[in-house]
Structures are given as C-alpha cells and as structure tokens.
C-alpha cells in the first residue's frame, strides 16, 4: 500500500468512526481478536488440546487465567485459539455467501432471462427454514470446519443474492453503465469493472453483518451438536460442552460467552457505522441486525 | 393611522439560525414585516433565502429541525407566538392560522382518505360529531370547487390529480376558518393552467373570508399577480419591500431587478433569457458587506465592506442597498 493510499484509508476510517465512540471501541475489540488469532501460539500458556485429568475444573487463578474445563484443558488458551475459529468461520461464511450469493444476484440482475430462473430458485431456497436446512445439511456433510463454513455461507447466500440483485438492478439503469455498454465493454467487463466497484461499500456492510450472524449460527449448531467437530476449540464448542457446568464451574460459560457476545456486538456496531456511511441509495437494502 | 387594533401578524426582528455541531449559523437575520386582515403579502426570493424557514417559524413547525429562533418576536393579533405554551400554540395552528405546502403530492398522508384527514383537522379544534364534521368537510370541498365532493370525500390522495390534491390541502387549511393563511409555493409543482386556477381560488376565498395571506414564491410573476405587498428576500434578509404597484413602478434593488428579468415572457425566446449571474453563496460561506455584492454589477468598495442599512424610499417602500437603482418610470 502506498503511503498515499494509507493516508486515504485513515481519512475514510476517521470519517466513518468520528463521533461514534461505541463503534470505535468495537473496532478496537475486533482488532484485538484478530491479533489474538494471528499470534495465538505466542500468547497461550498451554496447548489448548492438552488434557490434564488432575487439574480438571480448576477455578480461574494465576496458573489458569480462565480456569480449566472437565478435561483439565486451559480455558484461556482455548479462548485464544477460539478467536482463530471465530475469524475462520466469519471470513469463510462471508466468502461463501458473497461468492455464491453475490454472483447469483449480480448475474440475475444483469442477464434478465437467466435471472428470472435463478431468482426463482433463490425464492424456493428462501422458503426453507434456515436453521433446519443447516441442521439437515450438517448431518449429510458431517461435522467439520469446512462444512460448517459452507453451510452457514450458503444459508446467507440467499439473502445476499436478493440484496445484490436489487442493487445491481438499480445500477444497471444508470447513465454511466449505459455509457460503458455503448462504448463496447463486454458483459464481464461491465459487471466487474463498472458495476462491482460501486457495490464494494454496501458489500462490505453486508459482509460485516454476515460475519456477526455466522458466529451466532455456528454457536447454535455447536450447541445442537452439529457444528464444528467437538475437539476444535471454538467459543461455541466451549459453551456447548460446558453447559452442564453452569453452576459447578461458571467460568466455563462466562468467559467464552462474553467473548462471543462482545465480538458479535462489536461487529454489529462496526457494520452499523459502515452502513450509515454508504450510498443512501443502498442503505435500506441491507437490514443488518 | 390608528393603532387601536394590532395588525393580524407582526414579525419583529426575527432571527433564525441552524445549529451545526456546537455553533449556530444565522439563516434569517433581523426580519420584520406586518400583515393586516384581507391583505396579501408576497415573499419572494431564490431557494435558500430563508423564506420557507420564516413561514415554518411563524407556523411553529421548526421543532424537529436543526433551526432555532435566536431573536425577535412573532405577534399574531398581539400575542407573541414564540412565548406561547405549546398547547396554546397548537390551538392556533390549523385553526386560526393555517398553511398549505408546495408538494400536494406528498403533503397529504397517503394511507388515509382525504375526508378523514379533513375531519381530523375539524375535530381537533371544534367539538363536533363525526357526521357533522363530515358534512362540514363536504362543504369545505365544495368551497374549494371540487366537483362531486360527496363522491370524492372517500378518495385516497393517490386517486386525485395534483391540482385536486392542492384543493384538498386548501380545504383542510380552511377547516378552522383561519384568519391567516400561509401558502408556501402553493403552485410550483402544478401545471401552468392549474396554477392559475389555484391562485384564483385563493384570491376568491380571501375575498369571501377576509383572511390575511402570506404567499411565498420564488416566482415574482406569481407574486405580482396576487399580492398587495411584496417583500424580496436575499440570504435571510428582506432587501426590498413595497406595495406591489410601487415595487414594479420603482424597483430600487438590483436583485429585485434581476428577479424580474428572469421571468419569461410568453413570446420571448427562452434561450436568451437573462439570469442573475453567479449563485447564492452557501450558508457556511462568509460574505462581508452586502450579501449580494459578489453577483451585483453595481458593487463598489463600500458594498464589499459595509452591510447596507435599511433605507426608506417613501410610501412604505424600503430597501437595503448602497447603490439603489434610480426610480425610473
């Protein structure tokens, strides 16, 4: 990134977050989560998978900041690695939803005949109860990080397709697109070089909400025993495994619970701030929380 | 001149400002005028000159906007509206004084029948049964020359044409038999033929009821046709005011001249229509001296340095200009 671009980024950021101290705090928290995820191996005092039957259900203290679970695994270390899973799930779901849903929506709006069919398919899928569909898909595909990301991504792909369909339709009729078509630009070029750049900021907003929702969906799937493989240290798995310890070892629910809530809340705040700063034409297309 | 009865409306030194962040930005400065019953005052100016804000201030509709009254008083039959408790003031609004707006398309609530909207106004101010109020609404619709008022009373706004909707707005404004009617660009959104009908209707209603009218428009032509007196506003100030005949006979302010010149004559070639050069400076731009000087051909050094004070030209004709035009014939 050139220094100039960096300056511009900062300026944009300042404009979006100015006067929004809560959203700024949210952004700061998310940065912290990303740092924890990236440097997890350097931060953690224990291997998150290391079993220690002697130290099981230890209260939070100097040896174990967040205590230990019923395997005697260090909750703090697992929480830090949980940040990794949160990022993987969030980003993964966003990528799947935007790729599958975004492309479907854009193409449907651009090629009207194909679009009529594709959007009909999207309609059918939208009629499916999202969580139940996710449960059935997870049972078919079996539990894995990849499959969880895929399933959550696909569930949000339908709404993303709808939103992108609407926004592309609006843009398609604008003068500059006509101009591009008249000057002989190909379909791909019009879609990706002329329409897409105008959709980047609303897409970013949609992405931030998907990121937040995906955390809750993944936690719900974990709770129902159909999410990430149980050995994966994710916040959802930690909660799900420890739910019986709510009175016996409350730290097992409080710490990962607080981490999920804070992260989802932060992402929602940031998404909200982003939404207020985007093109008013698209503001009402993205519902968010 | 007897002062036994106060004028219908007397605006004295009214100042309005927009609150932005921590600071106040003046938009209307030291505005004064008065209006008697049966009289029509025209306020004319380009958009952004503060004429609409002035009308909102008089109606008490500034609440919810960032605009604040920072000085002056608005006397309605001697009572200062600005110091009146909200409840008292609402008793006057829509009753003793009422207002019609520029956009008849959007000024009516699309989800209610027009009859219900008129009835709502009537019953808000007069204890009346629903049936009686409905009969009164039919009568009002008849007053504003809506054909088949019995049939139309149950229409939704979107089922009516623009002119019809504006008639409904007027009917609604007349519900309380107001003594003051403020009409903010009532015809701007309408076809030329409909425009004339509406203006005629307002004039007819005035002669029937004797109410005072403030007509706000950017169109000097419209104003000239209907008003007894005219106030020309520029950037939050009245720059020239006079009896209509007097103003057109002896135009003193270069801005008024410019406005007049930009009215198209029916036989004139539109392309050669003169316009006032430049644009109205933005509110956040600071202009020293006379606010009009950047666009004024007659501007001199004093115009750039000193804000001109109001000069009386005689016969109720007054203006703010260092270099007023010569009163020609």
């Amino acid at each position, binding site marked *: 990134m050139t220094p100039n671009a960096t300056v511009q980024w900062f300026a944009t950021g300042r404009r979006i977050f100015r006067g929004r101290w809560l959203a700024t705090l949210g952004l700061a928290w998310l940065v912290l989560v990303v740092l924890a995820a990236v440097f997890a191996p350097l931060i953690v005092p224990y291997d998150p998978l290391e079993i220690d039957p002697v130290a099981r259900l230890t209260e939070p203290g100097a040896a174990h900041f967040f205590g230990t679970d019923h395997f005697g695994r260090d909750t703090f270390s697992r929480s830090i690695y949980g940040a990794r899973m949160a990022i993987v799930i969030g980003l993964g779901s966003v990528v799947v939803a935007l790729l599958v849903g975004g492309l479907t929506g854009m193409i449907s709006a651009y090629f009207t005949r194909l679009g009529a069919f594709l959007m009909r398919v999207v309609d059918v899928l939208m009629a499916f109860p999202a969580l*139940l569909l996710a449960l059935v898909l997870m049972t078919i595909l079996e539990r894995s990080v990849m499959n969880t990301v895929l399933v959550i991504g696909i569930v949000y792909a339908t709404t993303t397709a709808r939103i992108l369909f609407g926004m592309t339709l609006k843009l398609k009729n604008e003068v500059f697109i006509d101009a591009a078509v008249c000057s002989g630009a190909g379909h791909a070029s019009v879609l990706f070089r002329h329409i897409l750049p105008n959709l980047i900021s609303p897409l970013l907003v949609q992405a931030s909400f998907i990121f937040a929702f995906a955390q809750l969906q993944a936690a719900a799937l974990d709770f129902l025993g159909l999410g990430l493989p149980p050995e994966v240290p994710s916040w959802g798995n930690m909660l799900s495994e420890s739910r019986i310890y709510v009175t016996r070892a409350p730290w097992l629910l409080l710490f990962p619970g607080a981490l999920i809530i804070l992260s989802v809340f932060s992402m929602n705040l940031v998404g909200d701030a982003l939404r207020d700063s985007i093109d008013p034409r698209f503001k009402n297309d993205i519902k968010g929380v | 001149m007897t002062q036994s009865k106060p004028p219908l409306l007397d605006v004295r030194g009214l100042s309005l400002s927009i609150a932005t962040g921590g600071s106040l930005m003046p938009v209307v400065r030291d505005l004064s005028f008065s209006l008697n019953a049966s009289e029509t005052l025209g306020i004319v100016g380009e958009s952004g000159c503060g004429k609409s804000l002035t009308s909102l201030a008089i109606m008490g509709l500034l609440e919810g906007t960032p605009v604040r009254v920072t000085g002056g008083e608005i006397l309605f039959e001697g009572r200062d509206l600005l110091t009146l408790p909200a409840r008292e003031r609402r008793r006057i609004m829509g009753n003793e004084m009422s207002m019609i707006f520029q956009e008849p398309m959007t000024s009516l609530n699309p989800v209610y029948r027009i009859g219900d909207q008129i009835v709502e106004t009537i019953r808000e101010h007069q204890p009346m049964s629903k049936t009686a109020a409905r009969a009164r609404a039919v009568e009002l619709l008849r007053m504003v020359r809506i054909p088949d008022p019995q049939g139309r009373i149950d229409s939704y706004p979107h089922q009516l044409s623009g002119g019809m909707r504006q008639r409904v707005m007027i009917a609604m404004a007349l519900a309380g038999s107001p003594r003051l009617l403020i009409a903010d660009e009532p015809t701007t959104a309408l076809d030329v033929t409909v425009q004339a009908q509406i203006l005629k209707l307002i004039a007819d209603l005035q002669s029937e009821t004797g109410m005072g009218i403030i007509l706000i428009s950017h169109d000097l032509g419209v104003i000239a046709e209907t008003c007894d007196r005219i106030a020309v506003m520029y950037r939050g100030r009245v720059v020239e005011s006079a009896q209509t005949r007097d103003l057109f006979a002896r135009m003193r302010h270069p801005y008024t001249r410019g406005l007049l010149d930009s009215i198209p004559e029916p036989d004139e070639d539109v392309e050669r229509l003169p316009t006032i050069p430049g644009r109205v400076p933005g509110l956040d731009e600071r202009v020293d001296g006379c606010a009009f000087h950047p666009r004024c051909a007659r501007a001199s050094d004093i115009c750039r340095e000193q804000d001109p004070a109001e000069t009386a030209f005689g016969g109720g004709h007054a203006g703010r200009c260092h270099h007023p035009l010569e009163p020609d014939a």
Partner: protein
Amino acid sequence: MLGYATRRLLALIPTLLAASLLVFLFVHLIPGDPAAVLLGDTATPEEVEALTREMGLDAPVYLQYLYWLGNVLQGDLGTSIFFGAPVLSVIADGAETSILLAVMTMVWIVILGVPIGVVSATRHGTWVDQLASGGAMLFASVPTFWLGLYLILIFSVSLGWLPSSGYPSISDDGGLANLRYLLLPSFTLAAPNAALIIRLVRASMLDVQREDHVRTARAKGLAPWKVATKHVFRNALIAVAAAFGFTFAALISEAVVTETVFSLPGIGRLVVQSILRRDYPVIQGVILIIVVLYMVINLLVDLAYAWLDPRVSLK
C-alpha cells in the same frame, strides 16, 4: 382480492414441487439407517435389512419420492418410522407448542420492540435513543442458548418464579395457566428478534418523520403523540408489517435451540430428534409444512400491504 389470492396460490404449485423434491433429496442424503436406529444396539444385520424392506426404504429413491409425493398430494405425509403414527398427527402434537411459542414471542416482540422503537425514533439522537439502539443490538448479539440457560438459572432455580422447562398442553391440567411455561422461552426467542423490530421501527419512523405529510399533520395543530401514532407510526407500519410476517415464519424453525434448552415439545425439537433418529417422513413433513407456511405468510404479507397501504393494488 380473492382472485389475486387464488392466482398466487396456484403460482405456488411449481415452487412447492421444487421444494418437495429438494426436501426429499436432502433428507435421503442423510447417512444412517432408520431401521438400525429403531431396532437398537443388539439387532443383527439381517433383522435390520428385513425391517428396511418392510418400511419400503429399499426401493429406488425416485420411486420412493413419487410414492411419497402421491401421498402428500392426497394429504398424507406418511407414517413416522419412530412413533409408528401418522406424520401429520405427530406434527400436530408439536404444533400447539410451536404456534403458541411463536405467538407469545410475537407478543414480546410487539410489546418490547414497538414502544422502544417508537421512543427511539421520536427521541432520535438523544441518550434514550442511544441506550435503546445499543441495548437492542447487544441483545441481538447474545447466543440464544446462553441467554436461556441463565434465565432458567435466575427465574426458575434461584427465584422459583417460573417453570424451568417443558410445556404441558393448555388442554392439560392447569389450562391457560400453563402458558406460564412459555414465558421464559418466548422471551429468549424474542430477544434477538425484538432487536430487529426495534431497529426497523426506528428506521422506518425516522424515514416517515421526514415526509411532508407529517409536517402537514403538525401544521394542523395535532398533539405530538397523535402525530407520532396516527401519522408516523401508522405509515411506518407498512414497512414493519413484512418483518412481522417473516419473523413469525422464521420463529417456527428458529425455535429449535430454544425448544432444546427449555425442553419444549415443539416442532423444532421434533426435527432435531427426528434427524437423530433418522425419522425421514417426519423431517420431510415438517420442512415441507414450514415451506408452505412461509409461502402462505408471504402471501398474507402482500395482502397486509394492500390493506395497510391503499396505494398498493393487487394484480
């Protein structure tokens, strides 16, 4: 309007056929064998195979689909493998819980979401608004089961005010008072959805507040509360109505987690259990019914639009 509704219902047929095919395929892709689950740990492969044959699960999948579809068209969703009872009656057993839970959740959403949204909009920009909007978003960020767990702990175990779990039918001993069993679950389920409604009510009211006709209403001398309810909220309702409809449709399936935490005999938990038991006919039946419900609600939302907004005409 009747003609419109009929046309719309007819247009649903191809969509429903597509949906039914998808449902069937998805369900039959689930690995596992209902016969094996039913017979338990000690069954021999021969016994499992015999039962599979008996249940008709050894036929080619497309034949199974056509057979199932034929029955569905006659209003027969098949027989539950696990319960041995008609799927429709198994679903009907859960329907009472699910519908009452959804209705009570909607009540929470309305009594929490609408007033807070209205206050938030009328006090736009003040601390009240910030507290309400921030609070709504915070509630929407809490995992449902986590919230439910703590509500049980506080209101049932510690305070003993409300039942912790289960739901005896209102036709059972106790009658309508049994609805208290649904108070905590419906609140849990309402929390994130109420947040959505708060934000939607607030946003639509802010949009409407800027409209000219609201100024007209104020110019009439109407009291602020009359303007807010009769003119602003009434018009904002048009945008909110759709959200109400879709929220209701989504609640039936979103309730899965809540029904699990509170051990409610609703349709959501029925599906989860049926997936675990590989009770194909029940899974198919429930999903199909929810799809139909969604589409009917879609239609109702459109009808509601026409009713709320005279500008909309149904064609």
